[in-house]
């Protein structure tokens, strides 16, 4: 057992971890933030995507101790002041949510993409979410949602 500090969704927290725990275990079991999912446990599906110091990572591939003294954003921390992030709203509006299991990871991927590139082309969006699988195969709508979010973020008055 080891105690680490972590800023999670804007709050400084202390948490006890096991040396062999993954960041995903700490998020889901330690912090009870179950919006981050586990689909494969081996870096293939992207449903465990979170932002680590603003960079997109698969939480199943990061050991918990590697996140010590760093900042983690999960799906629960994406919206601001109790409202939805424009990406979340766009996912609802375009019908990009089906079973929803890929949705948190997709939104985090989109978030990372739009932070880097606020005006992605369709190809860039596709590349941006290429690490996230959607087995309901709603990719068209998801790409549409990211494009719409990008548009709304630049033209907030719309």
């Amino acid at each position: 057992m080891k105690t680490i500090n972590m800023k999670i969704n804007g709050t400084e927290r202390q948490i006890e971890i096991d040396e062999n725990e993954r960041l995903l275990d700490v998020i889901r079991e330690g912090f009870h933030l179950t919006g981050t999912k586990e689909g494969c446990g081996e870096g293939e599906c992207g449903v465990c995507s979170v932002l680590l110091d603003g960079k997109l990572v698969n939480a199943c591939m990061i050991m918990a101790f590697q996140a010590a003294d760093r900042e983690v954003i999960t799906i629960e921390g994406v919206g601001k002041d109790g409202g939805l992030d424009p990406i979340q709203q766009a996912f609802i509006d375009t019908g990009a949510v089906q079973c929803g299991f890929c949705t948190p990871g997709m939104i985090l991927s989109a978030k990372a993409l739009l932070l880097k590139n606020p005006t992605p082309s369709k190809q860039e969006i596709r590349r941006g979410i290429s690490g996230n699988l959607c087995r309901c195969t709603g990719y068209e709508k998801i790409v549409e949602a990211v494009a719409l979010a990008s548009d709304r973020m630049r033209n907030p008055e719309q």
Partner: protein
Amino acid sequence: MAFKVIGENVLRVDGHTKVTGGAKYPADLEMDNMLYGKTLRSIKAHANFTIDTKKAESIEGVVGVLTAEDIPGKNCHGVLFKDHEALCESKVRRIGDPMAVVIAESERIASKALESIEVVYEDLEAVFDPEEAMKEDAPKIHGVDNTVFHFKIRRGDVEKAFEEAAVIVEDTYYTGAVDHAFLQPEAGIAYEEEDGTLTVVAATQYPHFDRIDIAGALGLEEEQVRIINPAVGGAFGGREDLTLQIHLAVAAKKFQRPVKMVYDRKESFLAHCKRHPITMHCKTAADKDGKLLALKARIVGDTGAYASWAVNVLRKAGVHITGPYEIPNVWVDSYAVYTNNPFSGAMRGFGATQPPIAHEQQMDRIAEKLGMDPFTIRRKNLFSLGSKTATEQVLKESVPLGRCLDALEAAMNEKPLPDKDINYLEDLKAQQLKKEGFWNEKIR
């Protein structure tokens, strides 16, 4: 008349909880005083076995190990035939068959304890090829004939038509097993309520079927069992057969504590059905103008160790093997056969997905032999309003296949599209304007 839903853009009720991470899938549930289960699965495709769980039971933190003996009611389940054992009694029929479930204070202890269960296998002759399995002297997977189902169509006189045909194409086509790979691996939780009701929370496609089989296995009345279907992370047919539900229910009842199980991806692949691998032998005849005269097809579907929906799937494959074409003379034999392979069941299309591999290649090859354009030969034979299928069904509603072909041909003949990418956002906005009010304030 104005509709409230049809023609309107309706936001899905669970959209908000799903984009915020609030939606609860079974693995997200937790209860106080919870136990965890892990399943021991067969590593043999066909074998008798004996099992000794004593060592595993003595491990600290293990509260018990369930085997077939712990199933209080009927140790069987299945959507059509009750040919699955909830926990195998003395024989396994495929790799991945469940044999025991360790129930422990933590997931880690349960996983570790699996290694201490001692199993002695006595190999049985196995059969992996459905053609072999249909033979009389093949090993019997369930003690009866391996042919689960035989569907026939007999229409007109195929042999006579073959004699009169200008062209005949005959070949065999194979499709492989496919897994749904729904993104949320199986998980669930079960507990007994204060009034004695046994509640099972698991992502499922058939809560009502689950309840019948769980009650049967527990020896309870259906009314004493409650199924809660939380958020389901995809299914596509793969959650129609039971996986962990009976195990959870038995454990919760026996140990009087909530029990949770979560499969990892590997176990998920072992636990649920696959799409039926199907072998399709087709002999198709046409006259010199490309009009189809006859089809003779022999279809063999590998349902693996369990029947699941084999009857419905192979019936559907048998009906669909003509393709969307009028054929006056049709002879079909479609079989579902047990083997020691992973079991097959429902998956997207339910037997309608495999036949196009065969009938569309047959069409192309007939066209080639006649020197005919592939669109032309299809148009000559397509179902249209009023057509009769090989099973004598009269198509009275919409049959828009011609339009579908027109659109396809137009798209194929169009010059390569310029890179639309640059204007993607503009396109999207233009589309939005068309879908009047789609993204406006009103629906946000």
